[in-house]
């Protein structure tokens, strides 16, 4: 398969007053060209930080990328100069954020913000850029696009703002679109429309998508490949059919058992007992140990590693692979 992005052993830590938070701890993943990778996991497991590390948007201080490689089209993004990274941001890799209500600058018009992105990365004059942003807004299904480019963000609904964000992200034809929970803040009908839109754009432009969500319903609809994260680590990964047919990690099973559907309130999604571990006081062995129904003696002492269990399916759990025979 043709790999677009490979993340190897990424470590992103936050140095806070209370101690070090290993928000992303030795995470590896890959995205193939033209495919959608979904990253799932509970709140705080490091999904956004993984995504932001790719574009080197981690606020420093307190955050720092401490190790690993992020290979995009053959180049390690972590080794590029700041200028080279800026060339890529919003151009080859663009990002949509969780909060459409606050992700657009309130004092500039929608058009102004899209045109800015176009003129930054393409050699177009203001007039051509304006025309292009109108086209982009039409493409994402915004009616009266000629008027909307002169509107300020507060004059649009959440769904419209998120469309505008998508238009802004797509306008330079990125090869990779990172969408960090793009629909979480929206109501369900709008949510479905936005996901439809992303799928359509992907088919038309062959853009690869990294989609972050904690909604397995979204995963089922969108993903070709799935990575499950827990407390800063990848605990399971597989292609989407394999994962839903044959889930292995007790945490993934827990997520699936809560029978998520796109039309259910996200508060009710998780019924895995117990809480996300405290990042300053992680268990010595498997991080999921305190909440795991199938935990064994070894789990308390030894951290399981990610192991292939066939069909390109990988899981980090002592129940599978050779770890428990050692």
């Amino acid at each position: 398969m043709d790999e677009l992005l490979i993340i190897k052993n990424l470590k992103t830590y936050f140095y806070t007053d209370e101690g070090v938070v290993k928000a992303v701890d030795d995470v590896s993943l890959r995205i193939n060209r033209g495919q959608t990778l979904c990253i799932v996991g509970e709140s705080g497991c490091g999904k956004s930080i993984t995504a932001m590390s790719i574009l080197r948007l981690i606020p420093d201080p307190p955050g720092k990328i401490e190790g690993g490689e992020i290979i995009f089209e053959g180049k390690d993004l972590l080794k590029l100069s700041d200028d080279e990274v800026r060339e890529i941001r919003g151009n080859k890799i663009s990002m949509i954020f969780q909060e459409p209500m606050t992700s657009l600058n309130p004092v500039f018009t929608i058009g102004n913000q899209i045109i800015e992105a176009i003129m930054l990365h393409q050699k177009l004059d203001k007039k051509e850029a304006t025309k292009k942003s109108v086209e982009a807004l039409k493409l994402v299904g915004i009616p009266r696009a000629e008027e909307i480019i002169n509107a300020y963000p507060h004059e649009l609904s959440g769904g419209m703002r998120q469309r505008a964000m998508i238009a802004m992200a797509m306008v330079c034809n990125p090869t990779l679109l990172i969408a960090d929970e793009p629909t979480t803040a929206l109501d369900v009908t709008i949510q479905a429309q936005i996901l439809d839109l992303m799928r359509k754009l992907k088919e038309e432009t062959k853009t690869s998508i990294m989609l972050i969500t904690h909604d397995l319903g979204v995963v089922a609809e969108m993903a070709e490949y799935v990575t499950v994260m827990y407390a800063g680590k990848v605990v399971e990964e597989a292609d989407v059919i394999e994962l839903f047919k044959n889930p292995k990690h007790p945490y993934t099973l827990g997520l699936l058992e809560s029978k998520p559907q796109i039309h259910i309130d996200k508060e009710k999604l998780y019924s895995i007992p117990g809480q996300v571990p405290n990042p300053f006081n992680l268990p010595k062995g498997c991080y999921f140990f305190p909440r795991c129904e199938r935990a064994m003696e070894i789990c308390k002492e030894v951290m399981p590693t990610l192991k292939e269990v066939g069909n390109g399916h990988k899981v980090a759990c002592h129940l599978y692979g050779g770890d428990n025979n050692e």
Partner: protein
Amino acid sequence: MRQYITRRLLEMIPVLIGISILIFVIFQLAPGDAVSAIVDPKTSAETKAKLREQLHLNEPILVQYKYWVMDILKGQWGESFYYKQPVSRVINSFIWNSFYLSLASFLLSAILSIPIGVLSATKQYSKFDYIFTIFALIGISMPSFFFGLLLIKWFAVDLKLFPVSGMTNPGSTATGFALFKEVMHHMALPLIVLTLGSLAGLMRYTRSSMLEVIRQDYIRTARAKGLREKVVIYKHALRNALIPVVTIFGMSLPGLFSGAIITEQIFNWPGIGPIELQAVNTRDYPLLMGINMLLALLTLLGNLIADVTYALVDPRIRLK
């Protein structure tokens, strides 16, 4: 917008009437009057009575109020007991000196505070930030009379770099640019004193406003677009951070005219500040009332300007 401004200006009329009544009543309640402030023992009771008559001090309150309002409408604002001149003329001959000094200090602190505030915020906890935090602390806590005297001692008396006091050289006949230079030379020290005081506050204000803004999601969006850090900070962040700061600028309008009493006194700057103080001592109530009335008017105008600029810089605000 024009409609809004007209409406706000019309609304100011009843407010000003209310304020005029309040000012008038307060000064009626104040002990003594201009005549009782005359300390010259040779003044006979008879002269005093005549004076009272002349100044309408024996009339009923309502009649006195009427005289005062009529005077304001005529543009005289009453007659100063002390200067024996219309209050408007007294104010006019001092207030501009205060205005020049305050405006210079205002512009200087605005020009300095914004970049310092921005840099302190973007380099939070850096050496730069610490230095200016300490500086701000000094600026806020240093009493202006002390700092003023210190500057006079060092730069005027010891080093003789600047004149000790006044606005021009005694008996100066300079005009045009020479006069401007002379005034600037005299203004330097009081300007430093005034600016230190206001700079500190504005700087901290810009800093905290900026710190608030750079945490916002849209700043991350701007970075994710590939914009240079300078554009992110000076276009996307600053434009938002300045919204509350601009409002403060609007509100400082009355301050530009009210005079810096202590600083002007120390540097013997012929502004309105020392005149206010003197008017209190001589119980020159018409002058005090005039000054208060003027400041009330300027405060109302300042608020209007703040609201209008707020709407100009923040598209989310609609003036209705």
